[in-house]
């Protein structure tokens, strides 16, 4: 795994490296440099299995993190590629021509985070939600509880306790 990183470093400009496990690394990559790197990894290094493609919303830093997780099933190693996108204008190059299944992930990211992948098939069709008309729900600034309260009728008499104080009273009564 280390030698793979060194090999890659001689070919590409790589960002920060995180070594999570002996066979799971995460590397930060520039947005424009992802495509040559991921093609190289797929075709030359045997990381041919796209495990997942997902996003993390770092609201405080104003960035979206895209994670492309690749796996080489013969040598049992995983490599995660992190791409940071500007949260104000989240556009990313589509990789559906490298992995047809990536189109599904990109549809979900478009709907749930509002990240655009120009050229990806059926991107504008509704995937999971239907008739959604506010902030994409997986963004951190979308408050699901507030939305649920404003949208759905609630049954009177339901007691909702603040879980933390309730559990503290139940489990550690002496700490009160």
């Amino acid at each position, binding site marked *: 795994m280390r030698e793979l990183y060194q090999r890659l470093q001689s070919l590409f400009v790589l960002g920060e490296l*995180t070594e999570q496990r002996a066979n799971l690394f995460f590397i930060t990559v520039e947005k424009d440099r992802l495509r040559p790197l991921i093609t190289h990894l797929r075709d030359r290094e045997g990381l041919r299995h796209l*495990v997942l493609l997902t996003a*993390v919303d770092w609201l405080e830093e104003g960035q979206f993190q895209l*994670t492309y997780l690749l796996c080489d099933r013969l040598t049992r190693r995983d490599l995660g590629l992190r791409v940071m996108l500007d949260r104000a204008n989240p556009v990313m190059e589509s990789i559906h021509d490298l*992995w*047809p299944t990536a189109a*599904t992930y990109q549809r979900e990211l478009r709907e749930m985070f509002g990240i655009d992948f120009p050229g990806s098939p059926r991107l504008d069709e509704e995937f*999971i939600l239907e008739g959604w008309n506010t902030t994409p729900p997986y963004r951190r600034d979308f408050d699901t509880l507030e939305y649920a309260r404003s949208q759905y009728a609630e049954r009177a008499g339901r007691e909702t306790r603040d879980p933390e104080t309730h559990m503290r009273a139940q489990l550690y009564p002496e700490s009160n």
Partner: protein
Amino acid sequence: MAYQPDRSQYPQPGPDGKLDIDLTSGKYLKLWQGPNHPGITGNMSVELTVCGDEVVEGKTHVGYLHRGFEKLMERRTFIQCFPIVCRICVPEPDFNEYCYAAAVEELAGIEIPEQARWIRTLILEMGRINSYLMYLGGQAGALGQGVIGQWTTYVRDLMLDRFEEMTGARIYHMFILPGGVRDTLPEGFDGRMEETLQELESTLADVDKVMFHNAVFKKRTIGVGYVDPSLIDQYGITGPVARAMGFPRDVRKDDPYLVYPELDFEPVVGKDSDIYARADVRRRDLLMSVDLIRQILAKMPRTGPVMAPLPNVLHWKIPRGETYIRGECSRGEYGFYLVTDGSGYPRRVNVRGPSYTHAMALLERLIVNCNISDVAALLVSLHTYPPEIER
């Protein structure tokens, strides 16, 4: 001579590769299979465009079971996430618990006791058996053999009894939590488990006779729903679908977790990559799980703790990090991607269900040129569970 349809009437792909389907021409019919349809696996739907009785285009529609788990978990502390994760996927809930617990343990640096590792493996294998039994019933039911479903549900009920005495619940067990498992095995569990396994084996022998040696079943499944082995990486195919192609891809062997390195097994491999081969791989995999359970019960330690000491779970903060945990569930590779940011809540949880790739991109490709009557069998043979697609 086999029936040869007249393909001159079928839509031709245009210059952009898209099929030229003009619904007003009267040649095509749009047909929805699902969400309220007996031949659908759970609450999802497939939008079929048919010409005659042959499908020319199929689109999967999901989202009927979306509850937004990944959002709800961001609002809950690490220990509060534990009761809701199992509800992500109904027929095999334990994998969610295991993957979530393992991800939290890895990021928090918790080592779980030896006995807990064995009990976790036991639960996962029992859950796999349940899931496969449901599959066998569904696969036979999609081709008109209702009796198989009755038999397999009977054995599944016996297995649920074992779950119930172990965990106290039939479906949602909530037994594997970060730090270990809730309890040890009850007294006399091994004997009752052995009885259940013997009943399971005798039922499976009957299923083998009635289902796998049935001329109708063979005729309708052999050669149908063929998946080209070259698609395996492009479409992210894992689990029994990949093994039926001849690739010994099994996370239990490829990337061993829990106590699988200490167990003796070989991935079950088929060679034909059609519906029959996938059903056969799953039947043999089920028998392998029976063998694994026997090995686990024979080898596992019976003393020692089952729960690692946890910090005060109300103030449990996990340092910033990200990880991915995978396991081999009955459908393929199941994984949790967990990101923490140093607070008491997960920053992001992403569930990678195997149906995500199987039921969307792969199914839409396989369904073309399939008969309407084979769509249900094809869908079941990919073993798709919609809740893990949309969470």
